[in-house]
């Protein structure tokens, strides 16, 4: 293992830089934005899951007192059926536009159809009821296997299956098919002494961020469009709005306000282009807010899925082959995260013979959006349950079984690439030695389960600028919206380079006109990549400061060294000056110092987690209680351990919700019947024990401080860990999510 380096700032737990604003109510989130002359927008949504729009008549709404403008898809520029390159990704522009305001068809209940701007939110809401939309209702397709059937109603007449660049001839609800193959699965299964194969079904679940989507837009008379909003990425908002409105990015400024949670769900735009359209039509700033039902019905959840997993192993406990079939619902448009699911499914294991097939399928539900390790939890629920069953049938401790087969540096992942240095084995070893795992577990109807998970993490572009102040502090300018304390984890990396306290850094998250391109806060990339950019910017400052010291002392730059916040002369002169004192002499040595760093790193370094859970099952009601929970995770290097723990705890708890109660419930017409926080049952604090977060540090060679992304992987293991614990408690394998009380009662034969 890499020698553990000593750091001054990294690994400490300073108070977060935006903390006081956030505990005093002063921090301004998107919906808090106020402006003179503000109008309020509201979106009318489809009551039908699948229908053709015959006509839309907005005249009664337009005539309603207080209404200043009404918009429909007619107001959007004509969208071609073409692939738009949105910075980092490709997307079909017509799909993108149709999801903002439906043009010819509505494809899910909640699909936006029209929007109103009025002098108050209540008037806008009332006016929406005055918009007359005539629909020709079509049969909905609500489940992935149903949608894949040859005679299923088609959502898109032009959608044809693509598989690695090849497009099928006939239209289908299957948008794409992917496949990974390693070795010879047939031979691998023949070598197995035992084979386990099971089907799994998971429900549609939502990120459940507490802050609904919001956007305020204003067009200046010179055509400058400004959007104030809650987003995971101001630059991606700029790109998407530019494409949808066919408007130059140079005329769009996106101001990211504080964001009240996203978990992947605040990357796609929904109401931001609508606010812009209404602002254009009315000539006034327009604020559009979603309510909670809008969020559930009109924004992207993560998909329901059907997963089949088959694995074989020898008596000695060696996994010889694995096979997976993943069919994910993309929602109304293609885009299910089946790719990541296929990448992650067997990644905790070194298996020579693997075949994985994945399908992205459209159904009449909201277009899916990323949600924390998108796709990986659906997949891991299946694979980690099968692994548990293999271990059980072989009479091997489930963590020991994972150690026997665990993935290590140099092993080949099922999708091809070879693992760099990873911490899979370390998380399993740590879990195995944890007092939770060795504690007694024998009470009736109590059970213990474990599961592991993998998420690859991403890099992408980040930019940071550092302005040096004369008092030895620095202002750090970044473009990553701060969802969970990243101002601090980024600032701490710059502070470490410059040998200054974390408190001497003033981080600011700024708009798209004020910092270099920065990709979204997502993919567990922010502390990794924007932290990396901060590291580079600080190195730039350091180099420039060395030059200033050299100038001050009239020596060559090569003769100045910097350590522990002090510049010193190493050759000849006995000179020394602190970073702080040198900052006070910038004026006389050449003027201000500004450092910059831009990165697009490829070595994000995957993250592994292994979770242990104890449950109690009420055999009469089918209710599962979480008694104890331990989550072990490789963080590479924990910059601010408290916020790393927070990510682990939060991810585990979202997983607990997904495992036990969260799901979109639809009636036969395709209407969601539980679009509220009352009936979409996310865990409250009364449903949970403390979550013991255990950080393992296997430094990532792809980052100067060894950072790995930590945000996503903790949601991967919980569902299978809980299913395995339920099995331990009552002897029944649960294969459908959520494992809600009624499903347990059914599985136990009580109803």
């Amino acid at each position: 293992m890499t020698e553990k380096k000593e750091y001054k700032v990294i690994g400490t737990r300073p108070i977060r830089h935006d903390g006081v604003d956030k505990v005093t109510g002063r921090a301004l989130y998107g919906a808090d934005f106020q402006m003179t002359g503000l109008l309020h927008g509201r979106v009318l949504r489809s009551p039908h899951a699948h229908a053709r729009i015959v006509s839309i008549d907005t005249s009664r709404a337009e005539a309603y007192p207080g209404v200043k403008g009404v918009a429909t898809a007619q107001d959007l520029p004509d969208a071609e059926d073409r692939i738009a390159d949105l910075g980092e990704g490709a997307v079909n522009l017509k799909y993108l536009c149709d999801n903002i305001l439906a043009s010819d068809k509505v494809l899910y209940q909640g699909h936006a159809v029209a929007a109103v701007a009025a002098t108050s939110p209540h008037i806008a809401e009332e006016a929406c009821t005055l918009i007359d939309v005539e629909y020709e209702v079509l049969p909905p397709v609500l489940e992935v296997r149903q949608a894949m059937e040859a005679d299923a109603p088609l959502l898109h007449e032009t959608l044809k299956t693509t598989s690695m660049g090849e497009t099928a001839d006939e239209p289908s609800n299957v948008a794409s098919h992917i496949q990974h193959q390693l070795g010879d699965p047939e031979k691998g299964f023949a070598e197995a002494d035992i084979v386990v194969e099971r089907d799994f079904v998971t429900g549609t679940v939502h990120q459940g961020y507490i802050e609904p989507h919001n956007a305020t837009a204003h067009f200046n008379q010179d055509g400058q469009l400004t959007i104030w909003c809650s987003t995971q990425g101001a630059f991606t908002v700029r790109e998407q709005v530019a494409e949808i409105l066919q408007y130059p990015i140079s005329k769009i400024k996106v101001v990211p306000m504080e964001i009240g949670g996203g978990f992947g769900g605040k990357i796609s735009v929904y109401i931001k282009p609508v606010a812009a359209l209404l602002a254009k039509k009315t000539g006034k700033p327009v604020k559009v807010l979603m309510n909670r039902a809008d969020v559930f019905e009109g924004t992207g959840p993560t998909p329901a899925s059907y997963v089949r997993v088959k694995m074989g192993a020898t008596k000695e406990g060696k996994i010889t082959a694995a096979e997976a079939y993943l069919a994910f619902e993309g929602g109304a448009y293609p885009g299910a995260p089946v790719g990541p699911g296929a990448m992650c499914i067997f990644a905790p294991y070194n298996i020579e013979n693997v075949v994985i097939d994945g399908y992205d399928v459209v159904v009449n539900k909201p277009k899916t959006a990323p949600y924390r390790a998108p796709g990986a939890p659906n997949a891991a629920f299946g694979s980690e349950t099968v692994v548990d069953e293999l271990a059980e049938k072989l009479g091997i401790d489930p963590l020991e079984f994972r150690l026997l087969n665990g993935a290590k540096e140099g092993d080949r992942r099922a999708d091809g690439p070879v693992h760099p240095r990873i911490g899979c084995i370390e998380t399993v070893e740590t879990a195995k030695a944890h007092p939770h795992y060795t504690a007694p577990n024998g009470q009736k109807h109590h059970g213990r389960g474990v599961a592991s998970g993998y998420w690859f993490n991403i890099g992408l572009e980040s930019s940071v600028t550092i302005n040096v102040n004369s008092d030895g502090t620095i202002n750090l300018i970044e473009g990553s919206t701060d969802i969970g304390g990243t101002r601090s984890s980024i600032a701490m990396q710059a502070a470490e380079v410059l040998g200054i306290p974390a408190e001497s850094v003033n981080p600011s998250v700024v708009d798209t006109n004020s910092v270099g391109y920065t990709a979204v806060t997502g993919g567990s990339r922010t502390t990794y990549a924007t932290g990396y950019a901060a590291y580079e910017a600080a190195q730039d400052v350091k180099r420039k400061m060395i030059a200033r010291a050299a100038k001050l002392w009239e020596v060559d730059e090569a003769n100045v060294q910097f350590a522990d916040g002090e510049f010193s002369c190493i050759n000849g002169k006995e000179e020394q000056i602190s970073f702080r004192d040198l900052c006070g002499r910038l004026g006389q040595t050449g003027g201000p110092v500004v450092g910059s760093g831009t990165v697009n790193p490829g070595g994000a370094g995957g993250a592994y987690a292994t979770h242990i859970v104890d449950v109690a099952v009420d055999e009469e009601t089918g209710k599962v209680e979480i008694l104890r929970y331990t989550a072990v995770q490789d963080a590479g290097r924990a910059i601010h351990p408290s916020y790393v723990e927070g990510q682990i705890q939060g991810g585990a708890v979202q997983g607990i919700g997904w495992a036990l109660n969260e799901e979109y419930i639809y009636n036969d017409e395709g209407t969601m019947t539980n679009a509220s926080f009352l009936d979409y049952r996310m865990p409250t604090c009364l449903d949970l024990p403390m979550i013991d977060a255990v950080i393992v540090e296997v430094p990532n060679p792809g980052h100067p401080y060894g950072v790995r992304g930590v945000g996503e992987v903790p949601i991967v293991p919980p569902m299978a860990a809980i299913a395995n614990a339920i099995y331990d408690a009552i002897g029944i394998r649960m294969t459908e999510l959520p494992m809600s009380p009624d499903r347990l009662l059914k599985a136990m034969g009580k109803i």
Partner: protein
Amino acid sequence: MQDFSYVAAQTLSEAVALLDENGEKARILAGGTDLIVNVREGRRDVDLMIDVKSVPEVNVLDYDANTGLTLGAAVECYKIYAVDAICDAYPGLIDATKIIGGTAIQGRAGVGGNLCNASPAADCIPPLIVLNTTCVIAGPNGERELPVEQFCTAPGQTALENGEMLVSLKIPAPASNSSSFYLRFIPRNEMDIAVVGAGASVTLDDAKETIVSARIALAAVAPTPLFAEEASTLLAGREVSDAAIDDAAQAAQAIARPISDMRGTAEQRTHLVGVLTRRALNGAIQRIRD
């Protein structure tokens, strides 16, 4: 949200007169935790809200060990469970007041409002039924009384006539060797609507071995909360035993006519009626014996 007018009535007669004058679209506003949401989400059409929180009669909270409890219709949950004597006398009602919404809801919501909202799943109604509660109703023609089990007539509908409002609830003093219990099944531990709710009150003989009388009521298994009459009466004179309690549970299951919805399936609810009836009866008996 639709527009409406708001009046803070100061007297009972003023409130009744306003109700009478304004017809069906006038609603009494007490805690508002159901009414405001129902209007906001378009489930009730209201053009006048009559705030009665300043009306003295609906704020009465008066317990006497001999005569029982008079509970004003607007008294918030938190005020009820703050009184030890009421907690001791009517633990089944307290069970319900402590699980309605969260603490913030309990700061506004009251038992009377929970009753007037007439949800089939209302947590307070089964305990009110098993505690033999009488509703005191004021209207243009004066006051009348009604047994609580007759108050709800359909989901969201009550026996209140035009111009009438609930003033208070009268609960008799508990008999000796008696107690009550309410529980519901929810998938989480708080903040849910009952999938099924069951309340029971039990009076035992002095030896605490034989059931003198019992009352059982159910929530969320029919269009209104139900008094399980047969399940209740069959227990009278029976010795406390698993068999007796099972008989009552089965009789309770027999009257359940649940639907399937996003909160639970019909079969799950019927099953839970049995489980919860047993637990409610055992809970009440345990409280007597403790």
